[in-house]
């Protein structure tokens, strides 16, 4: 099939960018969206142009590196990562807009590449259980009810791609933050740091310049891993609990 692509080109963080139109021919429906971009890039290199820069790595939907806005949707029309989106979901002759994540806290680095290091700093603020290597008790010392283990797993699936932030009209990172808070706070191993974790991670999130949550729900719709919207409510509950507890001290 043949497509008309309109791709955001931006040389670096300082210079302004613009949408540039390219015609791409010879697209197979079995190609992934990124393989379609590879095809465009091979052509651009040979014609002496610079290829379109985009982040990608595992191409199996698990590393969270890739992610672009396709026709206005983070990761495009299917509920998956950009690397797992296949061209069979497009029609011959379509015009497709390809843009980077748009969010104040994710500055553009080049073309479709953005800086998501704010996510790492949110995790560093408390998204862990403090257990130095060697200090762990026997694994079966603390059974975890299956329902809690499943709840933890469901939230631990987050791949940190940033689609939630890109989809949110406020550029909020509430879904990302709540996924980690809920994963660790439900487990008995995470209980000792339950309050400091949620308070510190939410503070870090605010300091990074992410917007507030108005429950638009776009984040959960865009999430390729299906982190559910009620996660945010669960985090708010944790935050309230921790705040009350802190004020009683």
């Amino acid at each position, binding site marked *: 099939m043949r497509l008309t692509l309109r791709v955001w080109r931006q040389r670096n963080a300082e210079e302004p960018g613009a949408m540039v139109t390219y015609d791409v021919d010879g697209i197979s429906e079995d190609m992934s969206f990124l393989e379609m971009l590879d095809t465009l890039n091979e052509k651009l290199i040979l014609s002496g142009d610079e290829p379109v820069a985009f982040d990608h790595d595992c191409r199996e939907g698990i590393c969270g590196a890739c992610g672009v806005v396709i026709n206005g949707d983070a990761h495009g029309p299917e509920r998956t990562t950009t690397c797992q989106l296949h061209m069979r979901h497009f029609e011959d002759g379509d015009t497709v807009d390809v843009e980077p994540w748009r969010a104040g806290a994710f500055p553009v680095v080049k073309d479709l590449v953005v800086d998501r290091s704010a996510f790492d700093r949110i995790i560093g603020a408390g998204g862990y259980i403090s257990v130095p290597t*060697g200090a*762990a008790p026997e694994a079966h010392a603390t*059974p975890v009810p299956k329902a809690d283990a499943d709840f933890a797993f469901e939230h631990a699936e987050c791949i940190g791609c940033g689609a939630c932030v890109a989809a949110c009209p406020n550029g909020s990172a509430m879904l990302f933050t709540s996924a980690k808070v809920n994963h660790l706070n439900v487990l008995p191993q995470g209980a000792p740091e339950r309050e400091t974790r949620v308070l510190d991670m939410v503070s870090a999130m605010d300091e990074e310049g992410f917007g507030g949550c108005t429950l638009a729900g776009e984040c959960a719709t865009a999430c390729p891993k299906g982190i559910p919207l009620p996660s945010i409510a669960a985090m708010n509950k944790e935050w309230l609990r921790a705040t009350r507890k802190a004020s009683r001290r």
Partner: protein
Amino acid sequence: MSEYTQYAGYTAYTTGAPVADTKAPSGPVAERWDTRRFEARLVNPANRRKHTVIVVGTGLAGGAAGATLAEQGYHVVQFCYQDSPRRAHSIAAQGGINAAKNYRNDGDSIHRLFYDTVKGGDFRARESNVHRLAQISVEIIDQCVAQGVPFAREYGGLLDTRSFGGVQVSRTFYARGQTGQQLLLGAYQALSRQIAAGRVDMHARTEMLDLIVVDGRARGIVARDLITGRVDTYFADAVVLASGGYGNVFYLSTNAKNSNATAVWRAHRRGAYFANPCFTQIHPTCIPRSGDHQSKLTLMSESLRNDGRIWVPRAQGDTRPPADIPEDERDYYLERAYPSFGNLVPRDIASRGAKNVCDEGRGVGPGGQGVYLDFADAIRRLGRGAVEEKYGNLFEMYERITAENPYEVPMRIYPAIHYTMGGLWVDYDLQTTVPGLFAIGEANFSDHGANRLGASALMQGLADGYFVLPSTINDYLARNPHHDDIDASHPEAVRAVAETNDRLERLLAVDGDRTPDSFHKEIGELLWEYCGMARTEEGLRKALGRIPEIREEFWRRIKVPGTGEELNQSLEKANRVVDYLELAELLCLDALHRTESCGGHFREESQTEGGEAARKDEEFSYAAAWEFAGTGRAPVLHKEALEFAYVHPTQRSYA
């Protein structure tokens, strides 16, 4: 510089002095790790912060090592090419992690895990290392559970396990089909805690391009900031490479697109021996390629072989849809040939089985390059819900890629390059032949011999990173007191930076008419054809003749647009291909010199009557450690003899 355009290649080599693992203690195998830890010198806790350790890579091995060294009080400077340490390719490991917990009471023990791993590796790994790995396996599960890794659990709240290929016990712990992701996030979170505490300086989007060796010791690296293009030097008292394997030399593999061999290859060029490069693992259950546009291959976890049955039609060229092929016209070839292990034979055997039936013209799908992995029986027996619970995300992934529903139609699978058992030669302390340079995880060659068993890569990466290296590196640091004696003006640093810049400038200057990917594909296809699942002397000689020609053409025709002073993904790729073009040559030479078959290395000239790999223990019971002698020059072979006192080498039998 002449080495860029040198046409020379090699098919011969010289043999140097044997190499010995001088750090491995003697005595009963079960006591050696305790002995080594006791004999190793320690660094006073108050002195540790004066020592800087560079760690390259943030996967299971690197992430675990960086976090643990920082917890111990060392100053860690860590690097990854990805935008975040959370994205290292360990994240894509699906199936699970082995540990000799014996929670199932099914006869498992540390000794059995040790035995299975030595046997599974076709008797080409060291007993000392493998036993240590089995011992540490139980601590890893404890550590990960304490970190909050959400392993699968039973209704009683205890951990669930499953079986993997090559073993008859259920010792594999898992988190649905995303075990690697969950283990990596555990290590990443521990690392993030140390980054936030200021004990780890994390350099993301920064790629190591060379090693700095001063007075025979590893003292730093040259790395390029991938955003600004700036090439800089970083110094330390020791350097740890945790940069993964070299499977991407084949272009199509299950590795991440940017996984590369540059860190290990540059270290090899600076004096670190490279061991057993021909021991590459071909995973039997990957989604077959769909066309020339294919950029990578996707694995379907080996755990699927627990419940999926592998078959092809009995008759050649049978193109009926699978549902129309009656039971008695199907060949469940693994169950037929290996009744006791059935579909759970080791990976090398399952892969060759698939190749053989496809070569006979009984393969299925486009081009006949595939076999069925059928869940109909499991769905009938367990119910669709139970199958979904175990493998839901894998089935979803399969359907997304192929547009076929595996609950209704059998999966089609075909082998693909997945893992590399070879890597930098290391001693028992995981130290390379360059003092102060350590290699951990897939980057080293140590524990899997000629074939790795499923769910053992995660075990080894975490064992090296959490437990082995943080103990053994103390000994080196204690014996080599800290000196603040070098900076960027040191002649060796200046030389390494100049060579790196020269290479990058040269890549930009050629301005030819072929893309980096086109060369990468060419070398990859050559390797897959002549140094893939089956290898022959004739084919390997052909490949060794062709590689120097491709290298020469590369430096004449490569085209890299843009400049070096910015984010330039073409330049990154081209620079990695430079190293693949040399590594490929060593890989083929190693495969040519090892005229036996063992594990993942199958020489057609050396097989049993039944078509199984035939080892030649008298000739080849050694690890081949190669010393670099210059681009296109014959390397020097150093043999490390392997001794088996506990697991007697036999013809592996899974029948």
